[in-house]
């Protein structure tokens, strides 16, 4: 980012307020001017949101991918190990497989918690700065 000082967020032009029908005249300003995306993108708040989001989802994606791949490689090349019995006829392979289920659910719940705490409030903030109601 080359932008040095992000402008105050509250200054974004949202829907221009209409006072007593002054703007009843057909406005020449195109409706598609919309929110100033470049400005939002360069704001500190957005930068923080993106950093937080990527800081969670990228490492987590790598983590579950590597863990899944490890499991697949073990199933392909370490059959003896996977066949070791742990409790009764339940072997290491079955336990590791069930652990994949558990890790998937745990990651899902962690992401849900993370998003509620760190993503949603920031999105709300950025949206309200841009003058857009939260849905």
């Amino acid at each position, binding site marked *: 980012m080359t932008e040095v000082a992000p402008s105050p967020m509250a200054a974004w032009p949202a829907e221009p307020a209409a006072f007593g029908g002054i703007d009843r005249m057909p406005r020449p300003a195109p409706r598609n001017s919309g929110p100033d995306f470049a400005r939002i993108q360069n704001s500190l708040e957005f930068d923080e949101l993106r950093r937080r989001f990527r800081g969670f989802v990228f490492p*987590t994606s790598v983590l579950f991918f590597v863990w899944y791949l490890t499991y697949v490689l073990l199933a392909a090349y370490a059959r003896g190990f996977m066949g070791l019995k742990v409790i009764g006829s339940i072997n290491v392979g079955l336990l590791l497989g069930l652990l994949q289920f558990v890790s998937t659910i745990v990651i899902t719940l962690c992401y849900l918690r993370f998003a509620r705490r760190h993503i949603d409030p920031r999105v709300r903030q950025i949206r309200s700065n841009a003058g857009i109601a939260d849905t």
Partner: protein
Amino acid sequence: MTSMGSPALNTVVFAAFVIITLLVVYRVSNRNSTTADYYAAGSAFTGPQNGVAITGDYLSAASFLGIAGAIAVHGYDGFLYSIGFLVAWLVALLLFAELVRNTGRFTMGDVLAYRMRQRPVRAAAATSTLVISFFYMLAQMAGAGGLVALLLGVHSKTGQALVITVVGVVMILYVLVGGMKGTTWVQIIKAAMLVLCAVLMTVFLMGKFGFSISALLDEAANNSARGELLLEPGGKYGKTPIAKLDFISLSLALILGAAGLPHVLMRFYTVPNAREARRSVVWAIMAMAVFYAATLVIGYGAAALVGSEKILASTGRENSAAPLLAFEIGGTLLLGIVAAVAFATILAVVAGLTITASASFAHDVYANIFRRGRTNSADEVRVARRTAVIIGGLAIIGGILANGQNVAFLVALAFAFAASANLSTLIYSLFWKRFNTTGTLWAMYGGLSCCLVLVFFSPLVSGAPSSMFRDVDFHLFPLTNPGIVSIPFSFLCGYLGTVLASSDRADRAKQAEMEVRSLTGIGA
């Protein structure tokens, strides 16, 4: 070998499902005259509803009958499918669901073309959507033929063709009358039936073995030709080094492909915002975790109570494991219900694929490429409906022609296509600033054609006893799953296309718009 249970009862239960769902579809559908209604059900579903519908869209007959059968016959290796199909959803949850919901409106093409040159990228996205949907659909329809023989006692080819036609016509009715809203309700009903059925069978089986997994496994091993080895990996893929590599390639396609399936991506547009899209995936993951855990018990249960020899000797071979088990534990009534659920599964999945393919054609190809966006909503919906009828017709013809062929590999192939063409382009366009139109086209067409070429020169097509053409041998590529080569190849193509075409600068303003919109929903 004759059919199982009472074909008349199976038919009645299935007919009841069709009538009830058609009534529901008719009741919930308004006129579906706008694109937002027809493609996205007005984005009015809640996260939990959509989560269950995603489950319904995703769990095909292959997941239910195929996985249970694979576990019953090959043992542990079948379970590996369950795990891949489930873990794959983390990709959708973490990387795609919310961003795709915020960025697009109706199709995958909306996301990919957002900041690129519209026409070529939409053409590529539509090509990939249509190819994937067609392969996936063919597998489902061909499976219907086998199921008919097994469950309804229809053994003549003409009779089976007739049933496939009926299945196709009902599916077209769902899509035409109900649009996305009606189709979604079909998915919800079907998912509820399927998961409930799997859970009930599981609880019953566990009860029979005193709630001891170990006892169930022992009995399964005792009753299997493979003995103790049934509980270890390697039953299906462990015989040669090539088979092991093939298995790794398949695993990669499963985990990376699910989130790139166009009919899955399209479901995210049926909810109002990103938070609901996130909740959808969370609900879907929970429902599927329960379902896939149940397939493990059902699969080993079938090995224990029915036995692998009896399963392999029956009409549907592996696919008959779950129905045979249902008959064993619950008699004709439970078999009838399982049969109906299996049919409902095919119907619902094909309906979901049809609406996706028709939306992609009408929205990406007709409205944005042919008419360059100068068309109205009613006109676009008209084209989408006509396309749905044509696609439905093709599915019927394809299903009849492929009946009896071993086309189960087409599902794995659809995942490989999705992982090789859609995953790379979606990741790049959502997260890589410099990614441009050239990169998108290279990644998409590169991945797709790499897959097609590798499959054409694989043992699937020639040179093996199970090949499509048994008498010739022109196979050059040893693996039946292209993913391990085609997925990295697609990423490489996307990178090279972007870097080499330096004149094709990414649109900075559009990139800002897309990034802000994807993370915050501003402008969506």
